[in-house]
């Protein structure tokens, strides 16, 4: 690793501090590159794994309109994965790695994907809650990352955030319809909220307390991120608790309250031990989804080989 007193490092930090965007071929410290690879490959693979829970509802969507809309959303998520994996690949290229290595890392468990995409989606309300609240949570994180010091990631996010706007309204529309529906439909939505609430709190990662992890401190110093997990979670609560309640839904946490002066939310901590199990592929649907991903990767291998043998046309 470069000594932090080297001229190159100091010039790099000057660029970061004056708000420059760093590009793929610019000089960057190894740990900046590593932090980005870690973050962006996890984000990219989560988009792809995140399409799977919703994909389960494509054949079972209640109307043709809903089926077309959820298919479009699944396609968007795969597209986001492609964009982000390209960003990660350019960062990994000097290390001699590419997307095949990412897929291998996913299958061996070295590369994690977001906790929410390990969860089951037993009812149509889950498809709605994923769009409304999971994508709602994601857009809070991604909105922050638009100011990321790494240009290609920020530019990919600008496209992604634009499409997430459609996803959220798609989810809101499903949830709104259920909330305005029969007692059975309302019950289905309430149960889905109860199923997803702990996962939504976990989405932002463990609260830091007064101690930032080394990774987080680095990410803040390098302006890869600008807010802590807890700041993002507080933002989510402020935005969504009133909306959830306005649909007459009950959040499964009797201790949830907002300090009227400081505006800080108090909430029951989710089970962080369970969180670690989930992200280590021990969640309810982890193995099934990894299995599906692995099978489709292996079954597509011959296609990629054939494509790689294609003689490029004259350009």
């Amino acid at each position, binding site marked *: 690793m470069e000594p932090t007193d080297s001229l190159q490092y100091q010039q790099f930090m000057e660029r970061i501090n004056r708000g420059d965007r760093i590009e793929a071929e610019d000089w960057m410290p190894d740990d900046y590159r590593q932090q980005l690879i870690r973050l962006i490959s996890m984000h990219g693979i989560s988009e792809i794994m995140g399409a799977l829970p919703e994909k389960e509802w494509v054949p079972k969507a209640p109307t043709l309109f809903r089926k077309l809309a959820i298919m479009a959303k699944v396609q968007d998520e795969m*597209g986001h994965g*492609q964009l982000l994996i*390209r960003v990660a690949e350019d960062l990994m290229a000097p290390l001699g790695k590419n997307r*095949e290595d990412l897929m291998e890392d996913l299958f061996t468990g070295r590369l994690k994907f977001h906790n929410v995409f390990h969860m089951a989606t037993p009812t149509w309300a889950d498809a709605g809650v994923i769009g409304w609240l999971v994508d709602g949570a994601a857009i809070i994180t991604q909105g922050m990352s638009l100011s990321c010091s790494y240009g290609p990631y920020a530019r990919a996010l600008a496209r992604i955030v634009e499409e997430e706007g459609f996803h959220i309204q798609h989810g809101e529309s499903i949830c709104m319809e259920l909330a305005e529906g029969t007692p059975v439909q309302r019950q289905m939505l309430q149960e889905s909220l109860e199923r997803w609430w702990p996962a939504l709190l976990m989405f932002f990662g463990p609260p830091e307390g007064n101690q930032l992890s080394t990774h987080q401190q680095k990410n803040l110093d390098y302006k890869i991120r600008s807010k802590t997990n807890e700041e993002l979670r507080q933002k989510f609560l402020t935005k969504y608790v009133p909306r959830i309640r306005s649909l007459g839904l009950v959040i499964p946490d009797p201790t949830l309250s907002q300090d009227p002066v400081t505006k800080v939310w108090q909430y029951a901590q989710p089970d962080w031990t369970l969180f670690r199990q989930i992200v280590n592929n021990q969640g309810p649907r982890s193995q099934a989804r990894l299995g599906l991903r692995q099978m489709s990767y292996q079954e597509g291998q011959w296609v990629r080989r054939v*494509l*790689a043998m294609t*003689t*490029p046309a004259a350009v």
Partner: protein
Amino acid sequence: MSDAISFDVYEVFVQLEPMSAHQHQFNVLASSPEMALELGYENFCRRTGAVSLWVVKRDAIHKWTQDNFSGKERLAKTYRTTEDYKYLKDKWRHYRENPMTQEGPRNGRTAD
């Protein structure tokens, strides 16, 4: 044959309207220009449509970046723009109201 599969990176440019410029979108990984065009269309035109789509192999692009521009910072070159000619508008208004005679301005020149 090696198992490693090597595709190329293509940068994608989309023209949305006949009078707009092709705008760089992002890049895709593809085995051929045809595949890059398909991926480019799916990824960047599926909502907006397009009138034209270009893909360019990344290594065919020659470029300058920040470092190349040092020493080339722009001086204030108002003579390249309309900045230096703003006074003309007032002159035209003045002479619309007080046309010159064949001898020139009636009361001498207007103030600059």
